[in-house]
């Protein structure tokens, strides 16, 4: 006899966490799609976003769901700075150098956070933290529900930005073919700068969401980036529908493993690696994507 209530609950939890995973991964997807770089420091940008939201809440009492925009703006400027001073000079280098550079940035920010804020795990407790929403047989934590909805909004905003606005369309063109884009008069370097900035802003907003539902600590970005890499591979490197699909697969799988396997919540941490290997065995180009390998 299947326990439908627990099945549904587990599915719903998986979908909610998938929303957060999508927000975490979208910036990574954008940079990869437009610039062809896997940004190993993306997780650390999220970590910085989480800390900025934590401090804004602790010191000034600003609600994380409001400071989300502030974190986004802050990270936009940090991101454009990072691009201008470290990535721009080596855009024409072999891909190996970009990988090593972003990895170096990632290690730098992880340790900077340890030096500045110690390794303590920090949490934000708001007036509505404990509340939940009952829908008959299943119920949701209010915070998780809100982070999910904001993730959906962020995704929609990104899609609208890419398809309706001029700089967004320029990004799409550059991701298709940067030489041709240059020929038709698109400023490719400016487009890279903006893409990296927008991706960092997304990371900042995602970080603020992370600070409400998880612990904030220096390695939180690294842990999340492992999940994001897995989502990237499931989705077929660098397209938005693939990223959303990958997030759903990872979120739901983790949730089911957490519910149905003994000590599952511990194992859930390793799920992203298992999924990664399974995808590489059955379809290395990604389940959703059609991009070349």
């Amino acid at each position: 006899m299947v326990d439908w209530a627990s099945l549904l609950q587990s599915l719903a939890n998986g979908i909610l966490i998938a929303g957060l995973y999508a927000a975490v991964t979208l910036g990574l997807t954008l940079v990869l799609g437009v610039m062809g770089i896997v940004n190993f420091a993306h997780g650390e940008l999220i970590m910085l976003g989480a800390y900025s939201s934590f401090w804004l809440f602790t010191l000034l009492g600003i609600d994380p769901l409001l400071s989300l925009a502030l974190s986004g703006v802050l990270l936009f400027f940090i991101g454009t700075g990072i691009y201008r001073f470290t990535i721009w000079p080596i855009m024409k280098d072999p891909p190996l150098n970009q990988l090593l550079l972003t990895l170096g940035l990632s290690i730098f920010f992880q340790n900077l956070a340890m030096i500045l804020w110690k390794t303590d795990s920090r949490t934000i407790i708001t007036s509505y933290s404990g509340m939940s929403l009952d829908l008959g047989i299943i119920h949701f934590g209010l915070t998780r529900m809100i982070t999910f909805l904001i993730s959906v909004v962020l995704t929609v905003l990104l899609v609208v930005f890419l398809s309706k606005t001029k700089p967004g369309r320029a990004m799409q063109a550059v991701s298709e073919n940067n030489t041709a884009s240059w020929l038709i008069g698109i400023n490719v370097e400016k487009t890279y700068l903006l893409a990296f900035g927008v991706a960092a802003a997304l990371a900042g907003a995602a970080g603020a969401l992370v600070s409400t539902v998880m612990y904030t600590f220096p390695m939180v970005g690294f842990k999340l980036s492992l999940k994001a890499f897995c989502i990237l591979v499931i989705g077929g490197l660098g397209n938005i529908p693939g990223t959303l699909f990958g997030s759903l697969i990872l979120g739901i799988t983790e949730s089911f493993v957490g519910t149905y396997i003994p000590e599952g919540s511990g194992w859930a941490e390793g799920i992203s690696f298992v999924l990664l290997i399974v995808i590489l065995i059955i379809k290395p180009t990604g389940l959703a994507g059609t991009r070349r390998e």
Partner: protein
Amino acid sequence: MNRLISGKSFIVLIVLAVVLIFFYPRVMDSYFLHLTIAIFLAMILASSWDILARTGQVSVGQAGLFGIGAYASALLYQWIHLPPVLGILAGGILAVILAVGIGYLTLRLRGIYFSITTIAFAEALAVIWLMIPDITGGAMGVSTPPLFGGNRILAYYLILAILALVIMTVWLIEKSRLNFAFTAIRQNEDVANVMGINPTRYKVLAFMISAFFTGLAGGFYSHYNTYIIPYEVFGLNVSIACLVMPIFGGLYTILGPVIGTILVKVIEEFLRVTVPYGHQIAYGLILVVVVLFMPDGLIGLWKKRIKPLFLKKSSVG
């Protein structure tokens, strides 16, 4: 080719160095001997990472192979009292087997798949180790009796032998046709393919060699240190150290990883005292600075900037 020293005096230097290295433990005190062993161990990790890098692949998960080597030999000692030297060898072999698996899955794809998979691999091993404590010892770790009854001089000779083996392997690769295959694959995989080189096969081979020595280093570490825990041996810090040291020194050279290791270790020892948390910030800074300002590492800096200063008078065209 310009040389700073003539062939004859070069040989004399080598002989002197060998004699010095051999008698070193007789004259050094215990602390410096310990530091030397740690540096030799790191040199093995650095050089074996560089072997794989010669094919253009970036492993961000050497800790997985190091940890497997460490745990294989420690657990084999605990279960069947396998002599440490054999246990260390078993660690190396097990690391090779895992490398073949990961290599065949990912090395036929673009390089980024390999890097992503290796980083996830090391983390996944840490999860597995924590989740099945009955077999692995869990978060409490595993301890073994001191290597050679705590005789540091014998431990020194063992790690020296492994290091010599690694350096010799790198030298043999440089002298053999493997060097051409590795370099061709690194510079342009499609062209290499057309030239009749099977890129996947050579990349897997390089990964196997790299994994073997990394596994050996892990095995040595567990017995020498007498105690290992998953967070440490599978940790990101190990993987990062493995790549920062050779990149700092200079890639695709014999000397680069050796020099890079010495400097990184010295910087680390210094920072460990002054910055309690986060002293690995140096690793990140070194990576960024090297990629931006000195792409061929210290060796490249020496060849391009410093060596010409000495040779100004004698250099002709």
